[in-house]
């Protein structure tokens, strides 16, 4: 007698169906589990046995063989407890199947309760694809509810799961979404720093990577933390992509808020880009997909870490290969970096004197320069503020800035890419006003702009025009964009 249940596992950001096949043989009490299980999966037999006993059922007194197929995909975690238990009871004839098929995930407690586990999002996605219902732990309903067009059963106990399987209960209604969006820190808290605020707005509007430089305590971190708030809300597709990445990292995340990740400079390449043993998990760069990756004290990050960021940022994806499994994670993050101008931080300050030796300051700058620096379209310096600025009126609020950013992003939709991603040839194809061309060629001729700098200025100019709602980029946009280039 054999039966088949469905479950799922996240491989990278790919939901993969896993078949849970159960066969009852003739010989006496024996439990075999095959299909590349890890220790947690292998221990499922004890949890399943105890949970069944607590729910009033007994493990069949025959040879039970459980196969997790495809056999070559490594299985990990406790998510297969529930489908194994259901499969065994089905094979034993203790329950009947009321659906065409059923996807189930969940860890079993010894007393028969169902605990949240990995693979919930993957299960819901597999179920949606196959058009069959999905059984998930009730505590993980909000994660599964991201997937549209699927019948979900949120269950607390094994006995509830059995009733759902028989088809005697209605699908559970998804919990109201977006209700627990945590309050975002408001941009109004930042006083003064007009240039940096403008830089932040441009960065958000065109998804330009932003570099902030300046002495300590001028509000670099404060501004960076407020960047997710001025980005437009996540679309449904974006939210799905993001949920998959976070599910791959085995983490739940607050729904509908753009992520803000700030890896410390002691983090490893694996921590930043993803990796690990077994099935690769995404790093902070991918966890910040559609959100903000904040690198504080950029000069402190080791060179190999900074170099490793270059290609993924260029391509928007990062591919990680581990022991035969290759996974690709999306990583369209907006990178915001903050740096001091020198090790002590007070170089270029108007009042305080820099204590660094010229050699140390030079070394610090050289670490920052190079190809990664070229990725930062917008660079601003945060200087010392006057007392009046600090005690004056609060700045513009997050909501007001976000409205402008949203309008600017609307303008970019027909172009098919955000301004920060436009290539040289894309930029050539855009409409440029005669004055804008003149300013650009004047600066190229005078040697004020290099080839790369030329593209950077053009991208930022385009965003400035979008913020104003202009189809045509004019000379004032280009002149303002010139102000956002800066050497460290």
């Amino acid at each position, binding site marked *: 007698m054999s039966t088949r249940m469905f479950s799922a596992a996240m491989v990278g950001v790919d939901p993969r169906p896993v078949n849970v096949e159960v066969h009852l043989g003739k010989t006496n009490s024996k439990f075999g589990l095959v299909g590349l299980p890890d220790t947690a999966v292998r221990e499922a037999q004890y949890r399943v046995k105890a949970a069944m006993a607590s729910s009033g059922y007994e493990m069949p007194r025959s040879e039970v063989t459980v196969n997790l197929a495809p056999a070559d995909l490594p299985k990990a975690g406790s998510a297969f407890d529930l489908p194994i238990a259901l499969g065994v009871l089905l094979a034993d004839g203790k329950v009947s199947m009321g659906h065409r098929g059923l996807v189930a995930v969940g860890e079993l407690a010894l007393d028969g309760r169902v605990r949240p586990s990995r693979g919930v999002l993957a299960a819901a996605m597999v179920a949606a694809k196959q058009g069959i219902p999905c059984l998930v732990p009730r505590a993980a309903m909000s994660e599964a509810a991201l997937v549209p067009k699927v019948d979900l059963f949120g269950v607390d106990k094994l006995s509830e799961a059995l009733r759902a399987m028989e088809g005697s209960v209605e699908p559970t209604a998804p919990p109201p979404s977006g209700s627990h969006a945590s309050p975002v820190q408001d941009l109004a808290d930042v006083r003064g720093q007009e240039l940096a605020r403008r830089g932040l707005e441009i960065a958000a509007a065109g998804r330009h990577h932003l570099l902030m*430089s300046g002495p300590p305590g001028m509000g670099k971190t404060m501004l960076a933390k407020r960047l997710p708030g001025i980005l437009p809300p996540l679309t449904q597709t974006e939210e799905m992509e993001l949920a998959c990445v976070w599910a791959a990292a085995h983490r739940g995340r607050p729904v509908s808020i753009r992520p803000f990740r700030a890896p410390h400079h002691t983090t490893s390449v694996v921590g930043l880009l993803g990796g690990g043993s077994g099935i690769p998990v995404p790093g902070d760069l991918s966890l910040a997909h559609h959100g903000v990756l904040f690198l504080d004290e950029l000069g402190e990050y080791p060179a190999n870490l900074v170099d490793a960021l270059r290609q993924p940022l260029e391509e928007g994806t990062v591919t990680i290969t581990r022991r035969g499994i290759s996974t690709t994670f999306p990583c369209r993050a907006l990178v915001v970096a903050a740096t001091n101008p020198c090790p002590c931080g007070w*170089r270029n300050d108007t009042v305080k004197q820099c204590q660094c030796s010229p050699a140390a300051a030079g070394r610090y700058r050289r670490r920052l320069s190079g190809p990664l620096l070229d990725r930062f379209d917008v660079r601003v310096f945060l200087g010392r503020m006057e007392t009046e600025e600090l005690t004056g009126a609060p700045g513009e609020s997050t909501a007001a800035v976000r409205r402008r950013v949203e309008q600017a992003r609307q303008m970019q939709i027909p172009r098919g890419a955000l301004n920060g991603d436009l290539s040289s040839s894309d930029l050539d194809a855009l409409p440029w006003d005669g004055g804008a061309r003149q300013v650009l060629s004047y600066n190229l001729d005078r040697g004020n702009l290099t080839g790369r700098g030329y593209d950077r200025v053009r991208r930022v100019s385009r965003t400035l025009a979008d913020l104003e709602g202009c189809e045509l980029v004019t000379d004032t946009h280009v002149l303002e964009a010139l102000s956002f280039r800066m050497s460290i």
Partner: protein
Amino acid sequence: MPSDSIPYFCHRLQLAFSGLHPQRIHSLVMKAGDPAGAVHMIRTGRVKAKPTAREAVSIPAEQRMEELASAGIQVLLLGSDGYPPWLAAIPDPPDLLFVKGKVPVWAAVAVVGSRRATRYGLTLARRVGEAMGRRRITVVSGLARGIDGAVHEGVVEVKGCGVAVLGCGPDRWYPVGHRSLGERLLECGGAVVTEYPPGTIPEPWRFPVRNRIITGMARVVLVVEAAVGGGALISARLGLEQGREVLAVPGDIDRATSRGCNELIRDGAMPVLGTAELLEFLEAEGVCGPPTEVDRDPDSNDEKRLSGLEGAIGEVGATVETLMERLGWPLSRVLVEVGQLESQGRVAREGGLIRLKG
């Protein structure tokens, strides 16, 4: 032996290569009666000196001259034609000068200041360098870090004439990072001057000694930023002893790097309150002539400079936020206008600070 004879020159050259302190060489010559005697004393070991010094003076002067000629280094003997006349008049002029480039014989301005300068001092030094360079005033400084470097930067920026007085041999650069700056200085028609022969490494004691050459070559000494007890202040005192006109840039009274300058002003040095004023003073002193059309910055004139954005930027520069406040303009207008001036090469931006050029 007359001081213009060839053997005299050869012995002087041999003595210079000994690597001894210039004052020591001077006293040896006094003791021996002439340079030939001093060479003999070192060579025979009657003077306590390193073996390397003995070997160095033994190399014939002809061979040295050939090496110098092939390296493009000119040697000027005190009292000969081409030796800077102002330098010759100081109490302890160097007997020999090793020169790369062309030493200007007319009056120059020395700019001295702290190696650990603040942004205020650096910006001002650079602007002073640009302003004087544009008026073809020879600017003498030490090519050191800080103020020296900034002033030379300003001079080469406008292709002016600058003289760098080194504390090492003319065949090397110190600090190494200023090599390209020094080379540009030469390209622009400036000169590199030192009393030390090629091969001399930059030992710390050589720098204070060369300071007398910096001030000695000039007629006016401008101190941009100096802490009390720093080398810049020593230079200023040297300049006073040499009878030079000493000018100082005032600074905050509670900033350590301004204290030296402020003390100089208290003691009678003329405070410099702006580049325009400085140029007027130099004109009155006869260091430079009145501005000609060629001297003038083609993009700007003095009246315009005092108004609008350029006036708001001021002598030492300003941040964007300061400009917004001073002019009452919105951010985008400030950025656009700054961008315009920057395209024309009239302002430069350094780490958030916008400053005027030239």
